[in-house]
């Protein structure tokens, strides 16, 4: 059996036994989206949602040679980044679509 061993880990990991495959059906398998019914109870954990603004992603492209994001003039983007919320789809194993979104406080 092949195994992916991570640092300081003494347990073998079956590389093909992804939990994403075994346990978590993608949202696409849950059927087509439907309009919310006013009579349906709001899931308890969704009662206290706070609306947030998505950050504006600056104009950029990945410089394939340097392998970093650059602005239209070719200057690396990172030093220009200001503190801002970032929103990323959180995917543990490349699920399609990702299982959830993570919002992080990110800057460089």
């Amino acid at each position, binding site marked *: 059996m*092949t*195994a*992916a*061993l*991570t*640092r*300081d*880990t003494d347990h073998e*990991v*079956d*590389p*093909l*036994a*992804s*939990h994403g*495959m075994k346990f978590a059906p993608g949202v696409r398998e849950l059927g087509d989206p439907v309009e919310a019914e006013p009579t*349906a*109870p*709001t*899931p*308890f*954990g*969704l*009662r*206290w*949602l*706070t*609306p*947030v*603004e*998505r950050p504006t*992603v600056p104009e*950029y*492209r990945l410089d*394939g*040679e340097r*392998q*970093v*994001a650059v602005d239209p003039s070719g200057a690396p*983007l*990172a030093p220009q980044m200001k*503190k801002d919320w970032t*929103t990323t*789809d*959180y*995917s*543990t*194993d*490349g699920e*399609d679509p*990702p*299982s*959830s*979104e*993570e*919002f992080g*406080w*990110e*800057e*460089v």
Partner: protein
Amino acid sequence: MSVLVLARDFDPTADAVVERLTAAGVKVLRADLADFPQRLHLDARLRDGRWSGLVSTEHHSVTLDGLRSIWYRNPSAYSVPSGLDAAARNFVFREAKLGLGGVLAALPGVLWANSPNRCADALYKPYQWSIAANCGLTVPDTVITNSGGVVREFVADHPDVVSKPLGGAGMTSNGQAYLSYTHRLTTSDLVDLDGVGMTATTVQEWVPKSYEVRVTVIGDEWFPVRIDAGDGGREDWRADPEGAAYSFVDMPKTVYKGLADLMRRLGLTYTGADFIVRPDGEWVFLEANSGPQFGWLETATGADMTGAMARLLAKGLT
């Protein structure tokens, strides 16, 4: 020896680490899984039980048997060529995952930061909490149920409780982004519990806090950072990040040992572990993130976390 960085194109932290590795003369290939199969190329051959070959982009390539480390930095999903029906889309997605992912996972002697399968394990907080307690860490009493009656029983024993999601705190509905912060439940919140039955609902005892701590561990380098919440973040510091203050803090040896053991048990090479420190000084474990952000903490404290990640990836398992 070389390093593979799997990250999205727009990722300032990945940029910083890639630049640090490049400056150190380490051969790096950075790609997003969404580049596969159109712009990321795989040539993997199994001979005598060992995989060899190349992973390459237009500009860079790394050999499979020369890979020292893989940084699995929240890449996006594999792309699917256009013009396919749903069944064919599922097929090409699954084959990409099992093919590219399977080959990478099969490479011996490669350090993963972190292995996607280990991340998948760690995503289950109930699993984390159980192991954390076994590792000697203090974990809050918790109930997960789809019964409102069970929630009432729990509240009877723990009058001060919070609601928190088990998954990511973010979601989007009708184009609007939302965050679901930890919410301290009031008496009025507990009047109508119909929503408890809609799914697994998690309620946890409220932990009185003196301050919070994010412990970022990157290989052998530890960065425990105290977070003093701002006025708007007393229940969840993330609600008021502008008002939060950051400083280094010493970790109790028992917490250090417990977290190190937890990481070993979860198979995590790096993590961002969250704690609440109670007024009596007890450290209470909340969760260990398997793909934490750290750029914001680096800026706030001056800790060289980018350098730590570059050093970890360059060193690998050696």
